């Protein structure tokens, strides 16, 4: 991305609800200065956002024989942003049998990211 080699880029940090406005000065495609962040997580966020943007994905899987027909899930850690779509596709066909509990693995190593998808609510038998 040549146009960004010597550019100033603006970000809103998503690591906490504060949402710091962070400015990154780029020089020769490298980060020269990061300003506007309240804490080190902000610097980490923009660095990652420039090199390897990642997100935690939350969604649902179907439950069979449960008190609810679905259970919420999340990726146990963040995954590359461009894998969000594939991660959702991978969850489409998953059917878990009730009961499930918080922390149960719904899908291992989702889309080869090395990250598991885990259940985030207890759903008892229906």
């Amino acid at each position, binding site marked *: 991305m040549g146009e960004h080699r010597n550019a100033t880029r603006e970000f809103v940090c998503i690591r906490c*609800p504060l949402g710091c*406005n962070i400015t990154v000065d780029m020089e020769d495609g490298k980060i020269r200065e990061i300003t506007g962040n309240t804490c080190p997580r902000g610097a980490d966020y923009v660095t990652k956002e420039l090199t390897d943007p990642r997100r*935690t994905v939350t969604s649902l899987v179907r439950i069979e024989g449960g008190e609810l*027909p679905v259970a919420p899930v999340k990726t146990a850690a963040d995954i590359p942003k461009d894998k969000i779509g594939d991660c959702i596709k991978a969850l489409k066909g998953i059917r878990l049998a009730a009961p499930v509990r918080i922390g149960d693995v719904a899908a291992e190593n989702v889309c080869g990211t090395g990250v598991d998808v885990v259940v*985030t*609510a207890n759903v008892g038998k229906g």
Partner: protein
Amino acid sequence: MEKDLVIIGGGPAGLAAAIAAREAGVEDLLVLERDSRLGGILNQCIHNGFGLHTFKEELTGPEYAGRYIEKVLEQKIPYKLNTMVIDLEAEESRKKVTVMNREEGLYQIEARAVILAMGCRERARGALNIPGYRPAGIYSAGTAQRYVNMEGRMPGKEIVILGSGDIGLIMARRMTLEGAKVKLVAELQPYSGGLKRNIVQCLDDFGIPLKLSHTVVDIKGKERVESVTVARVDENLKPVPGSEEEIPCDTLLLSCGLLPENELSETLGVKMNPVTGGPEVDESLETSREGVFACGNVLHVHDLVDYVSQEAAQAGKNAAAYLSGSRSGQGRGIPIRAVQGVRYTVPSSVDVSRMEETQVVRFRVGNVFRNAAIEVSCGGKILKSQKKQILAPGEMEQVILKRAELEQIEDPEEITVSVRAESRGRD
């Protein structure tokens, strides 16, 4: 039935209040929850971002609720599910809570203290007076959230969202991830009502456009929504003729604000704050009715559940102190006035003789301010001046009052919280 403490609502506020009250020594308490599980609205908030303050990690709503539910179970705090409080009365210091459920029917509980923790509800279409037809396909964002996240059902395929509050933003992403096409988020105000990070991770990440200063001026479709028309609004928030754009869609989600759910509080005759829609409370979160406390979204609408939990824990602790008769002082509360850009404060008074060493005062501003300062004054003295890069109505602010400082002031009449603006601008 008689109880020392009845907590109305088993959501995040009710749970945190119950745990704090039990930890402060209240044995005889009961949590009343109208839904079929504890946790309240958190059960349908399956996105992450909860609990950074409380647990130093990002949890999803059900996980956050789960941590409190575990504690409630551990401490064997009694609760009733599927139980609706249908009336609340007070006779001197006795409170009568009329409840109803399938197993026990209709009966009264006499309580020495009550904590109101009923949460809030969404503003409906009618309150917004959006013109047009009234077909199927118009839902509040929270109703859609329930259909999707609890029932696994989609309320629509092509979506327009009015209102950029957090629930609207979160639902834009949820609907997209579950296979719907979100065409637009329109916001009446010139600024978003939600957290900035939600604009990034819920809209920008998925290329969903956000139109500020826009509203819905027409809904077409006689049976199911077929299109909505959005238009730009002027400074007075009135639609600008000629700026209309018709967007084909089958669903309109509304995320246009939350209203504290205080019908019960009103039957009790507690003094209400017209700005928050919640009761007026003092530093112990006690309402104008002795022994009736309020916390969480029934008191004022929060952005962060962490603060709900903190506030509720304070209410639980104070209710315990009230019940044990160990509250010190009963002096004159100093009113806290919201002035100049500050819309309200919670609490709205503080009793120096009774307060702890510090007291958190939470508030919201009425507009977007850049490079401003929050000022707290009392007795002609500026107690605090806190610089802020940006202040926005969508984000709750807080200042901390110190007892030591207030004790210094002779005969204080009032404390004011204000915004000293260096520049006021649009976001």
